[in-house]
Structures are given as structure tokens and as C-alpha cells.
């Protein structure tokens, strides 16, 4: 117990320290080398936003969502269409984008991931379950969601054509850098804080963490694990949709737009490890600057290669990801 408290104190102390350091660096950089700072922090938020939805679904449900990029696509399309076709103001349109994706995620979870709907039909029709849930079946969930992603990309192409009209980038620019991108950095921080609070400070978050740690025990203690999974998947999808919504003004609206997120998202989740908030934000902080600096110096190609090489090295030397290192460090310092 005392150990736990000490650990918690460690976490809070160093967590706050890290946050202060990141903010201070931003403030310092904004005055000395604004353009470079903004670019690096934007790259960090890109990685974090790309990964957060995927990380939640992977970390908690053990499901790898290869259709993650297409969930982002859905959010971006829903935002763009509700802004251009329905004339909604941009923030509302973004909310619509996130919400639509969350609802879509809910449907996907019920129909495919948990197999609730097919099994319900199966029970009525032939008196047995037709499929098994995909929870913790990593390879199978990858194959299934890849099928889903093919359908979604091609569906978008058939319905909306090869591209749709883009919405303009809001706000002006500071030091030659678009304000909207700077605002995205702040929004990313807000999203991370919200996710952190949701999973650590609410009853729902406790349920989720209990389910993640030990599903059987959680069930025995009266937690409806199936509903927890369902809501988790919806939240993860909603965050993917939000990512799409936020980047909608910046990207060209093509059915393949999800692809550009997929690499960053996977690399960040792999490098980050099991813990959603700590892992994702730390890997964002590691990968973002690498991506931005290499892209600056040697072109976009070098940035991507550097990212992928980093991922491979991270997997090779840190099998538990950054989270594993943090845990190790904490145990050593907290325990000693």
C-alpha cells in the first residue's frame, strides 16, 4: 500500500515535471525559433492525434483496428460534408464528425468485433452463435478490420468520387506559420488531459482499467465487461473521428487520406507500449521531432524512413515500449 502511494506520488511529481518541461520548451521556443518550434510541436500533435484512438482500442480491448485510418477518413468526410453541404459552423461540424464516427464505431463493435448482432440473429435462426468475439484475437482482428477498411475506402470512392471539396483553413498565421496548426497543439493537449481524466478519475475509467487488467475478476465483481468494451470501442472510434475532423481543413479530401495516418499511428502505438496516455504522448514527443527534423533537413521521405527505423529500433531494444521503460524506472526509483 505504502509502495503504491509512493509510486503514485512519483507519478504525479514526475508527470507534472514532464508537462511543465514540455510547456516551458514550447514557450521558450516560440520566442527564440518560432517556426521550428511550431513545426516540431505540430508534428508531435499529429502523431499523438493519429495514435490516440488506436491506442485506446489496442491497449484496452486487444483489438488491432487496421481500419483506423478509415475511421479518421469518416470523421473528416462527415465534418467536411456537414460544413459544406449543411452549412454548419466549423466547430459544430467537427463535433458532428466525431459523433458520427463514434456511432459508426459502436455499430462496427456490435456487428463485427463482438459479434453481438450476428450471434443474436444466429440464435434466432439456427439456435447457436455464428461467430466468436474478436477480443484479444490480434491476428484475426487485423484481418477482419482490414477487410472493413477495403470496403470503407472503396465505398467512399464509389459514393463521393475521387475527392470532395475541402473546407478552408481557419484563422491567420503567426511567424509564417498557420495559427490553426498552433491551435491543434493546444487541442491535442486538451484531448490528452481529457482522456487521462476519463480513465483515471471516473468510475467508468476504473471499470475499464479493471476489465483491462483481469476480465474474469472484473466480471465476477459485477462489471459488465461487454458493455465496457463496447463503450471503449466507441470512444476510440470517436477520437479517431475527432482526429479526422481536426485535420479536415488541412488535408485534401480523398478516400485514401487515412493511409497517411496509419504509419504514424502504428509506430506511435508500438513505440509507446501498453499505457494509453503516457505511452502515446511520450512516443509522440519522441517521434514528432524526429519526423519534423528529418523531413526539414532531407525531405519528407527521410522523415518517414527515420520514423520507421526508430520504430524498428524501439521494438528491438524496448520490447515493452516506452511505457515499459517508464515502469522500470518507476519501480527502481519508487522501490529503492
Amino acid at each position, binding site marked *: 500500500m505504502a509502495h503504491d502511494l509512493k509510486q503514485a506520488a512519483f507519478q504525479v511529481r514526475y508527470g507534472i515535471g514532464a508537462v511543465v518541461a514540455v510547456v516551458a520548451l514550447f514557450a521558450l521556443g516560440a520566442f527564440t525559433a518560432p517556426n521550428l518550434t511550431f513545426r516540431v510541436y505540430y508534428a508531435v500533435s499529429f502523431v499523438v492525434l493519429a495514435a490516440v484512438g488506436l491506442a485506446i482500442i489496442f491497449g484496452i480491448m486487444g483489438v*488491432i483496428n487496421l481500419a483506423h485510418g478509415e475511421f479518421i477518413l469518416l470523421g473528416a468526410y462527415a465534418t467536411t460534408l456537414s460544413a459544406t453541404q449543411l452549412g454548419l459552423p466549423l466547430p459544430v461540424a467537427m463535433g458532428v464528425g466525431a459523433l458520427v464516427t463514434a456511432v459508426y464505431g459502436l455499430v462496427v463493435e456490435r456487428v*463485427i468485433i463482438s*459479434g453481438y448482432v*450476428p450471434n443474436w440473429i444466429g440464435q434466432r435462426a439456427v439456435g447457436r452463435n*455464428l*461467430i*466468436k468475439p474478436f477480443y*484479444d*484475437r*490480434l*491476428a*484475426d482482428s*487485423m*484481418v*477482419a478490420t*482490414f*477487410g*472493413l*477498411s*477495403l*470496403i470503407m*475506402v*472503396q*465505398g467512399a*470512392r*464509389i459514393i463521393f468520387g475521387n475527392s470532395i471539396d475541402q473546407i478552408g483553413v481557419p484563422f491567420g498565421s503567426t511567424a509564417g506559420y498557420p495559427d490553426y496548426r498552433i491551435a491543434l497543439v493546444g487541442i491535442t493537449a486538451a484531448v490528452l488531459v481529457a482522456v487521462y481524466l476519463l480513465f483515471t478519475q471516473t468510475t467508468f475509467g476504473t471499470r475499464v482499467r479493471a476489465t483491462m487488467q483481469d476480465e474474469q475478476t472484473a466480471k465476477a465483481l459485477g462489471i459488465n465487461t461487454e458493455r465496457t468494451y463496447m463503450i471503449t470501442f466507441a470512444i476510440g472510434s470517436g477520437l479517431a473521428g475527432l482526429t479526422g475532423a481536426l485535420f479536415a481543413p488541412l488535408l485534401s479530401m480523398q478516400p485514401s487520406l487515412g*493511409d497517411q495516418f*496509419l*504509419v504514424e499511428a*502504428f*509506430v506511435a502505438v*508500438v513505440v509507446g507500449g501498453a499505457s494509453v496516455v503516457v505511452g502515446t504522448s511520450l512516443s509522440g514527443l519522441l517521434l514528432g521531432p524526429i519526423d519534423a527534423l528529418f523531413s526539414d533537413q532531407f525531405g519528407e*521521405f527521410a522523415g*518517414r*524512413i527515420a520514423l*520507421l527505423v526508430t*520504430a*524498428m529500433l524501439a*521494438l*528491438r*531494444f524496448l*520490447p515493452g515500449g516506452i511505457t515499459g521503460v517508464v515502469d522500470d524506472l518507476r519501480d527502481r526509483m519508487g522501490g529503492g
Partner: protein
Amino acid sequence: MAAESSASSSSSSPAAPSALGRLRNRLEGPNTIGNSRRFWVGFAVVLLGLVAFPLLGGGTGNQFSLFLVLGLLGLSLSLVWGYSGILSFGQTVFFGVGAYTFGVVSINFPTPGGITGAVVAGTLGGAVVAALLGYFMFYGGVRDVYVTIITLVSTLVMLTFMAQTAGSEWTIGEAPLGGFNGMPGMPLLTLGVEGIFTFQFVFNELELFVPVLGTVTFDPFYYLALALLLAGYLGLRVVVNMDFGRVLVAVREDEDRTQMFGYNVKRAKLIAFTLGGGFAGLAGVLYAARNVYIDPSVFELYFATLPVVWVSVGGRKSLLGAVVATIAVEYLRLNIGGELALVAVGALLLLSILVLPGGIVPWIDEKLTNSNLDVSEIDGTEPSTEVSES
């Protein structure tokens, strides 16, 4: 070895095995489906049909040779994923490396001997890259889904890399890599040694007099691909029914337990991965030779996932399933055509993994041979697999 497998198979000649009996003993075992006389009769009929197909059907034989080449790629993933439990999205990396190696070597040495060497070099190229990547992963302690993600990432690395090789500095000897435009100008696939015997396999319509049909033309490349696919299939059947194949299956079912039993799990996985890389490389060589062209689209994510589609539809734990599903899915994909092809492939994938996670061919086999002992053994492995994957 032969005696051991005869114990598990329902072989007909236990006392003094003839040459055919010994061959059957090597080909049959609990790790493959189709261990009955009935199966081999059916197999021979289908094979005869495939041999006769271009003579009867004419033009489609050319397109069909592509499916046969891709069948080798499907086989490689079946070995790596279905038998060793390594889900790899990287088979197309080895495929592409094989294709590009073939292109580079054959452009630099455009003689029959050089081209034959290029075929070998391409195959080895796929195997070497697989061995390097596999060594890095398996001996580095990377496991399970992280292996999958690394292979996925390496596909994207290759795509990004090859796509930017348009400049003239990316020229190996005489062969420009060509970036997105690809690498044209390979010599036609001509195998053999100068002065002794050479034969050109592509763009060489042969005429043959068949008694009933009259004179028919056929594409020799089709028969080359068919022969290699047949050899690959039978060869891999031998491999997975050897002791080594049993170790692979044990690794798939429970890696830690296999290690506890004293097997070198890392080496087994590396060998399987390398072998798979070689098969994929050979498929790549044939693909490039058939099209006389190769471009970076073979490294695209979509192409990288096609082998996974084939193998999971056909049944990943069955070599036969991989080949059959490759041919069937590719046939469908090219013939549905248009916008709906991708949707159909996606739906097929989704449905097959939802309804028949074991694949179609093992399911058919189970229905056909309900009382067969070998099949019940395959059934018996089913639940434990799920445990090991969870």
C-alpha cells in the same frame, strides 16, 4: 523419418514400401490435408485439367499463369503464418526484392546464362532479406503482433524507398530502378546455358499438334509456372510433414512450451521465415519475368495484404487451401473488375474470417472425410490454437 510418418498416415504398403509408397509417406501426415488415395486421384485429375487448360481454352492460359505465380506467394505465407504462426505482411517485400533483383541482374547480364543466374539471384535475394529481417526480429525478442507490425512497416519502408528512386543516381550497373515509373527493359526470360541448351519462356507462342483439336498454340511460361507451383506445393508438403514441420506447428501452438521442450524456437522460426522469403522471391522473379516489368506498386499496402486475404480465405493451416484460394480470389478480383472489386474482396475477407476462421478448404475437407483420423487430429488442434492466440 519415413517409418515415423508411415505410422501416422494410412499408408497402404507398410512392409516393403515401393518408391511411390515412400514418396507418399513423405508427402502425407497430420499437418496437411488430403492424405487419402481419393485425394491423390482428385489431385491428379485437377493437375491434368490444368495441363490441358490452355490447350483447350486458348487465350486465358496467359492470365492464368499470373494466378499460378501468385499461388507461390500464397504458399510462402501459408508456411510462415499457417504453419509457423508468424503473421507476416512482408511477403510482398521479399516478392518485390526478388522481382527487382531479377530485373537488375538480368539487365546487366542479358544472356541466357545471366538470366538463369538472375532467377537464382532473385530467389536468394528474397530469402536473404527475409533472413536478415527475421534474424533481427526473432533473435531480438520481437514476438506476436509486433512481428506483424514490423513486417507491415517494412513494406511501407520499401514503398517509400523505391518510389523515390527515379533519379539517375539510382542506377545499378546498367539498370535504373526508375522510381514510380518502374523498371522496364528486362530481357525476356530465357533459361539455360549458351551453347548447350536455351529456351525462351515468355512471348514465345509454341504451336503443338493435338490429334483431335488440330494445331493449338500455348504459352510455355504457363507450364513453367505450373511446374514450379507443383514442385513448391509438394516440396512444402514434405517440409511440413518432416520433424521440422512438427516443430513449426508446435511453435505455432505454444511457443513457450516448445522452448521448454528444448527446441530452438528462434532458429525454427528463422528457417521457416527464410524459406518463405525464398518462395516469395521466386514468385517475384516469375512475376517480373512474366510482365517484363516491375514497379513499386508491389510494395503497396493493398498488395501486401492480398496474400493475407488468400491464405485466410483458403485456410491458413493448409497449403492446398492457400493455392486454391489464391487462384480463386485472384480470378474473382480480376473478373469482377471495376469499382466493386475491392468491396467484394473486403467483404469476402470479412465474411471468411467471421464465419470460417479456419478457412474454406479445411472446412470442405472436414465435411468430405468426416471419419478420417487425420482430420480429427486437425480438429483437435483447433481449440488450442485459439488459446495460444489469445
